């Protein structure tokens, strides 16, 4: 059990981040905190991909004589792209939140719901 914890701690961190992110996303009533939760959720996924690339005793993937075994460079590239996507999503979300705040004067989801349906 302890050995599994030792060798797989990254995956526990992934699960923790996914859980925290999703919980904040659903449970928090503050819209900005929801967006933060969304970011934490995505960070969990990024960590998952990066962990996939790891191999024990692997070298940086710069091909040279007798340089192997290498870690996989592919997940890093994918996550660079995904980070860019995440940043754009956050930007759009915050822009929408600013518009909502100037119009309704609140960031609280419950109050917003009352105003929204009236």
């Amino acid at each position, binding site marked *: 059990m302890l050995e599994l914890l030792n060798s797989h701690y990254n995956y526990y961190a992934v699960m923790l981040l996914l859980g925290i992110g999703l919980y904040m996303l659903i449970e928090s009533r503050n819209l900005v905190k929801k967006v933060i939760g*969304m970011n934490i*959720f995505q960070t969990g*996924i990024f960590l998952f991909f990066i962990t*996939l690339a790891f191999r024990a005793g692997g070298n940086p993937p710069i091909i040279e004589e007798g340089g192997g075994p290498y870690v996989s460079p*592919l*997940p890093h590239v994918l996550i660079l792209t995904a980070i860019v996507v995440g940043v*754009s*999503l956050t930007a759009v979300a915050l822009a929408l939140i600013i*518009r909502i705040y100037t119009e309704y004067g609140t960031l609280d989801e419950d109050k917003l719901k009352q105003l929204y349906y009236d």
Partner: protein
Amino acid sequence: MIEQIPVLLVVLPIVGGAVPLVASLVSDRAGWPVATLTLLGQTGLAGLLAWTVSTSGTVSYAVGGFAAPYGIELVVDGLSGAVALLVAVVSLGVLAYARQAGPHSSSFYGLYLLLVAGLTGMTVTGDVFNLYVFLEITGLAAYGLVASGRNASAAVAALKYLIIGTVGASLYLLGVGYLLAATGTLNMADLAAKLGEMAAYDSTLVLTAFGLMVGGLTVKVALFPLHTWQPDAYANAPDTVSAFISALVSTVSAYALARLLFSVFTVEFLTAVPVARWALVGLACVSIFAGSVLAVSQDSVQRMLAYSSVSQFGLVVAGFAIATPLAVVGATVHLLGHAVMKGGLFAATGIIERKTGATTVNGYAGMGSRVPLSAFSFAVLSLAMVGVPPAVGFVGKWYIVLGAVNAENWPVVAVLLASTLLTLAYFARLVERLYFAEATIHSEDAPAEAPVTDGSGQAVSFGMIAVVVIAAALAVALTAAVPELQAMLEDTLPPLLNQ
């Protein structure tokens, strides 16, 4: 030249989308002409591509010269060719509506073309991670477009859409990670081969990947109970945007779901893991019922149409999950037909609201004589959606039911037949109000309710009405094109379905 078309289809709208933003420094009205020119080119290229695919088979292109499976591959077969053509034609058609209906800003047309690029990219890509990127491009453009309504409620709807949509796309990305861990590749064809070689369809890794990817995409397709973003987004967006995204965004996501089922996991997976197929069919059936029931209980016409989409996409996904050749042809026909019909219906609600101020089911009473052409088109599109022959809605549903009968999947047959009755329940109510009920809104008290959407002038142009009439005509005429589509799918489907 031919093999470059798939990548041109993505690049052209992205480049075209940047032009209105730059041109807005000089003129504020440059957006529409630029978008029209770009999409005319797009439609021509997509038509040429679809024709090439139907005569000489699959076209593929290795992006950047990196050969598959290491590089990103764009693959166009009969199925994706048909969807790419649909995206081009519908987006061109909606432009004729946007000319008068607005919004008129340059940034609107930039986003509009970006959405076309994202949708086309999702259609032509042969790489699961690339699909994620295009899914998010589509999403970002769609959130922006929904928020372009003048009312602040549009921003609330867009934020809701953004948060739910991002969770869906992130789940899909997590599923891609699981698949990468299982096989070490991202190319769709290579994934299918590797998964087949490993013969480990029921391993936890592959099952989890399937669950996450399909779950993520069903959020974007808006199947019940993951549809909650959709009615708010459709009802609060400007009319142009409602018509556009209701016609295309869910449609292309459903196409991506089919691509995932047939090109990545393959039919053997569905056979080897019956619980996966049952889960998908079950979800689709629940969606058909719940969508219809929610649609019947709506007061606002646009929200009713949105819930109707939930139900109709249940039908399409059920067809794909049954995965017999007839059912898949039926699901494809209904996918394409639904795009034209739902886009036309939303466009018609926009016209009726502008002319009379009617937005609710009761408000539609007696409007048959006030806006004869739009109301008639609305009625035709409604009946086509119910599946009255000879409209295209009938052909799609008929093939899906035949496919389910062939697969001897009787519970699904029962649900499919009942769904037609349920669809009739909410559309017949509207058609009856339009023609046989005493008017509740009279011309003098119309303005009290009128300026609800974006308020950019309430005039209705010839182009707007033409779009609705053409959509209604297409809903019937497309039936004639079904044999063509079948011929196009003839080369594509058998390898996918292992026939």
